[in-house]
């Protein structure tokens, strides 16, 4: 257990450091660019957009919270202090709602959609990939090209195809939103039912995409493992096929877990865009709204939340990896 603890502490420290970097980047990057958002906001308040008093108010709020006239490091610490209190200022496009109010709703939609979808897609993909490698023959021949093609369809493409088939043509599932547009979020049975129905299309489009990519990776890992010496040796010993498959699966799964940690960010990015297709009330749609509404406070808070979510998910994967792979523990004890 001592070895694992050391591994955990190391990982958590590393992710904390990454978090610090991510936060700094989130603050600094936009301010380094020529058309930096803060002066854009100031410009807007002068040129007087549609609603001058509104812009003025947001600008005042912004100056107050971010201390625009002060040196940049002072600005950073004010911003950080506010962010730690969950205060990201007031949104432009959805004035007078605060950014944290908008996001606190959106985050849960995204988490509840993506987390189960990616986990299920990953598990199904790995099982199918392993079966394809082990069975070979027709199953493999038929399923591999299909997965190869599916894995190359972007997530939003899969979303739009499912939407067209099941939502528009067959008309069996709703085409947009997270719940019926005539409903208010409440704890009634009708609302829950509507949420479940609206959940299907976004959920399955993410699952299908994940399956495609994972199955191919798992298949080639499993083929590689099936040719390994320990498999041949086990066969000589007369160990049952079932047991050998178990070993192979475990060994082939380890690189898949590492792969998951590496590609989580990309996967979540793709899934966020798929949300847009369904106007799902999650972070993806909020991002789109922030961009079209030129709402910088909302956008930067959105990216920060997404980064933190990816970091947390990654950390979770790596912590689980520590338990599953015995080599991690052994390495740390040396």
């Amino acid at each position: 257990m001592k070895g694992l603890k050391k591994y955990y502490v190391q990982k958590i420290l590393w992710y904390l450091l990454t978090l610090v970097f991510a936060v700094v980047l989130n603050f600094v990057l936009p301010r380094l660019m020529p058309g930096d958002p803060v002066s854009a906001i100031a410009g807007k308040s002068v040129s007087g957009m549609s609603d001058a008093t509104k812009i003025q108010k947001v600008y005042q709020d912004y100056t107050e919270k971010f201390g625009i006239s002060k040196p940049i490091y002072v600005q950073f610490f004010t911003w950080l202090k506010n962010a730690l209190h969950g205060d990201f200022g007031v949104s432009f496009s959805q004035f007078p709602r605060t950014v944290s109010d908008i996001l606190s709703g959106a985050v849960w939609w995204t988490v509840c959609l993506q987390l189960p979808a990616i986990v299920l897609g990953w598990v199904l993909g790995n099982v199918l990939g392993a079966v394809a490698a082990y069975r070979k023959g027709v199953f493999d021949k038929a399923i591999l090209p299909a997965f190869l093609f599916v894995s190359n369809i972007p997530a939003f493409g899969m979303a739009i195809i499912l939407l067209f088939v099941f939502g528009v043509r067959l008309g069996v599932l709703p085409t947009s939103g997270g719940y019926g547009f005539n409903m208010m979020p409440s704890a009634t049975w009708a609302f829950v039912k509507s949420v479940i129905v609206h959940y299907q299309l976004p959920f399955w489009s993410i699952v299908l995409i994940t399956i495609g990519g994972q199955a191919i990776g798992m298949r080639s890992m499993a083929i590689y493992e099936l040719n390994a010496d320990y498999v041949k040796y086990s066969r000589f010993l007369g160990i049952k096929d079932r047991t050998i498959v178990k070993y192979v699966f475990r060994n082939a799964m380890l690189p898949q877990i590492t792969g998951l940690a590496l590609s989580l960010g990309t996967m979540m990015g793709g899934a966020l865009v798929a949300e847009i297709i369904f106007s799902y009330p999650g972070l993806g749609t909020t991002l789109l709204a922030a961009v079209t509404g030129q709402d910088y406070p909302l956008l930067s808070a959105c990216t920060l939340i997404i980064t933190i979510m990816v970091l947390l998910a990654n950390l979770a994967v790596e912590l689980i990896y520590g338990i599953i792979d015995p080599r991690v523990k052994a390495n740390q004890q040396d």
Partner: protein
Amino acid sequence: MKNRIRQVFHSGKFITGFVIFIVILLTIFIYPLIITRDPLKMMGEGNFFRPGTYVSKSEVAGSGDSYQLNVDAAAAQVDRRLKNDTRGFMAEWLEKYGGVKSSEIDVSDADGLIALWQDHYDLAAEQKGMTAAKKKKFRRLDKEIRDIMKSKALFLAEKNEETGDLEEVEELGETEYVNEKDIQNKHTFPLGTDNFGRDVLTELVAATRSSLKIGVIAGVIATVLGLILGLLAGYLGGFADNLIVFFTNLFTVIPSFVLLILISYSVGESQRGIMMVAILIGCTSWPWTTRSVRSQVMSLRNRDHVNLSKLSGHSTIRIILTDILPYIASYVVMAFILQISSGILSEAQLSMIGLGPATTKTATLGLMMNWATMYSAHLNGSWWAYFPVVLMIALISFSLNLMNTGLDQVFNPQLRD
């Protein structure tokens, strides 16, 4: 080397991917030579024409001797004029007194119904149990149907500038026709038009071209950056290695998607051309290449021939160029191929959230998707506005990945089935 290339072209996967890719490439270069008009020209007013051939309405009506009847005009007129309740009465009479079986009557088929009527309706026929009023009604109905069958002319009128009255210009009979070849202003949209009335096929070809351009530029930048950093880290080791690995790990965990959004938003719309987006994508996607190059170089670093070179006093640059690069060339090519496909995907996703290249001169695959979803093509069933785009992205990425797998199997024998 020659042998290797021959081996590559023996791999079925590589060939399939290669052929698809070459077909796409040829299309985007040859198509603009044949159809030279601006791909973003708005051809027709109105959203989302479905695929087909279109003729200008004003030309059809105005030119008199050159218009096209693209439907069977007579039948359509009959169909339009024959009201639903009239049809009901006709069916009723035919069934009760005409001796026609109800299965033979189809009220939705106007032509067939009238043919049956003309065959069976007879004023003198015995119509038991019918009041005189009803008999008269059917007589009127018969007359009505005869009227419908007579052709009616369509009048073209022009508005008088001074009085504002409509003046008859021409009379168009139902049986006047014109040869299809005489119509000058005819457009065929094999894939329909988009929300701006632009030809989707022509636009798609142009978009594929600019998306590939973005992919290649981003791929070159990412590969060069990744290669340099990977070589430095892997070969030099020590502090340089630690530093580079630290940043590589950092940027693999911090999603490049997020960095792209932040930077593209801040650069502002005026700056965000195709080139800018390509550079941004390239600058945020190097960590993958760095990782794989570094691990390859690490395994090469202590090989005998490298040590020999070192002992001979060759410079670091020369050792890298002659003793290490040739060994990792195949990996670099594979990484480059993957970078192209992920670059195209990144552009598409970036454009979908409205941060793609802000240009009115060219389309990209992502912008086409963005326009289609903004004008809710996916909700109103205009599949031709987005489905070809999705298919094109999938095909490009599929062909590139197949080529990559093919190469991998040649250069990495352990993976062969």
